[in-house]
């Protein structure tokens, strides 16, 4: 039975929700606006109308070679995600399609590794990285982020794969499909959406990781998290530049995030809320 909602009530909720949403979004909006101001405009008091200058963007790139950091972020986030998928897909696959008595225990144990506070292993990881000359290298950071996110990737893939009906596999086998044929023609097409959303969420998490990326890099491999954190040292007022750098740093992930918000719930709650 459809219930007619009075338009007046709907308008009331609309206004309330938009006001709250704009308040929450405001710091981001104001950053984007400030990035199109000049430095003097940026500290000249509250204003939502920028002059539209692009000088801050040009200066960020000219002064600090912004795109080097951007490139590092892309390489580390995408690289660690692909590595994690390569390792996790077979594992999640076998757990979803031929579960054993221990499957649940293994999954729980994987989850438990995620509980280890990063700072507790800062010293050994730092020393290992120092002694193997992995400090400030992209490869070191990529492997690091792969390990950190591996449990989430396995879990997310597992919850997706589990929803693929097993009867389809049996039907394919009855029709004489080989294992290889099963994987290529039956399972892969059904698994692709799950793998894609896992990939998206993992790139977001890796992009925003702000402990190891700051502590294990100095210049060569420093991604955007480390670059932005370096703005914290007080060297005068440079808010337009900070805003420009911030806008560039969050824009790609913000857009990816908007597309993946539904998968996010499943991924971050390990399937406990869908």
């Amino acid at each position, binding site marked *: 039975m459809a219930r007619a909602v009075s338009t007046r*009530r*709907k308008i009331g909720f609309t206004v309330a929700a938009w006001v709250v949403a704009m308040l929450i979004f405001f710091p981001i909006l104001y950053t984007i606006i400030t990035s199109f101001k000049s430095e003097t405009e940026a500290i000249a008091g509250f204003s939502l109308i920028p002059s539209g200058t692009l000088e801050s963007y040009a200066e960020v790139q000219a002064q600090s070679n912004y795109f080097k950091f951007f490139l590092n972020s892309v390489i580390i986030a995408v690289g660690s995600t692909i590595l994690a998928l390569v390792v996790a897909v*077979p594992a999640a696959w076998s757990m979803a399609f031929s579960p054993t008595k221990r499957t649940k225990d293994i999954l*729980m144990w994987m989850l438990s590794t995620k509980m280890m506070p990063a700072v507790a292993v800062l*010293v050994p990881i730092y020393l290992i990285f120092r002694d193997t000359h992995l400090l400030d290298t992209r490869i070191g950071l990529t492997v690091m982020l792969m390990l950190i996110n591996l449990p989430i990737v396995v879990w997310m893939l597992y919850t997706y794969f589990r929803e693929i009906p097993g009867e389809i596999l049996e039907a394919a086998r009855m029709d004489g499909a080989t294992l290889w044929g099963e994987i290529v023609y039956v399972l892969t097409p059904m698994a692709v959406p799950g793998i894609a959303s896992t990939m998206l969420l993992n790139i977001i998490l890796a992009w925003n990781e702000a402990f190891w990326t700051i502590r294990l890099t100095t210049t060569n491999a420093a991604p*955007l998290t480390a670059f932005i954190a370096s703005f914290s040292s007080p060297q005068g007022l440079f*808010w337009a530049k900070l805003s420009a750098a*911030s806008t560039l740093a969050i824009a790609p992930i913000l857009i990816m995030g908007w597309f993946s918000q539904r998968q996010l719930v499943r991924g971050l709650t390990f399937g406990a809320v869908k």
Partner: protein
Amino acid sequence: MATRQTSTLARFMMAPSVILLFIWMIVPLAMTLWFSFQNYNLLNPGNVSFAGLFNYKFFYTDPAFFQSIWNTLVLVVGVLLITVIGGIALALLLDQPMFGQGIVRILVISPFFVMPPVAALVWKNMIMHPGYGVFADIAKFFGAQPVDWFAQYPLFSIIIIVAWQWLPFATLILLTALQSLDGEQKEAAEMDGAGFVSRFIYLTVPHISRAVTVVILIQTIFLLGVYAEILVTTNGGPGYASTNLPFLIYRTALLGYDVGGASAGGIIAVILANIVAFFLMRAVGKNLDK
């Protein structure tokens, strides 16, 4: 269905993940445990000796230790209160019929995708700055004295920033839980004359209680490790006023070069996290059985 052949294959497919995670868990943790019983300073690396429980005693008797534990708890509880209560209110609001619901959702979820250093710096400089921030502009507009947030209320300011980052997460998960509530049940309750409050207490609360538990537990795991937000705003100060346990360990390790002391702190952090983890695993494990 699982023949011997497929189960061997399954084991083979699982091996890389299991081995990698096992090494990742055991090796650094064992090293931290080992270091925590050693006198080991990076400035004097040739002189390493067994220290017994000295590092733990050192950490335990440091006045900064109890303050950092206290700050960690205040930070976690403060952010949880704001995000859970705010998240329930927001989720209830967003669950109502309205125009442009999709865009509102996107606006509300956005802060979650902002990397911690950006979130902290934007709040520090553009919102809470005593001279040029938006809060100062508002105060000046009303003729009041602007507040120097990070000097006067350092921990509270950090709580605000972290809560802003996590409120979207709580809202999104609680909204997802709300939306799975059976609409017919709601209508039936309404027709039986149940008002908003009693519908909320008897229908909504039991339905979303598990989602609330999950939100609390997952956020706690992340909130115990808040680091970048402190690094770029107050750097733990003034004094130790906004130093939490991770930040104290970082200070001991990389600023004091004290490997032993930092490792003892790390072990304490592991114990704290394990207490939380125990409950999280139970909540998630229950879901697996269904």
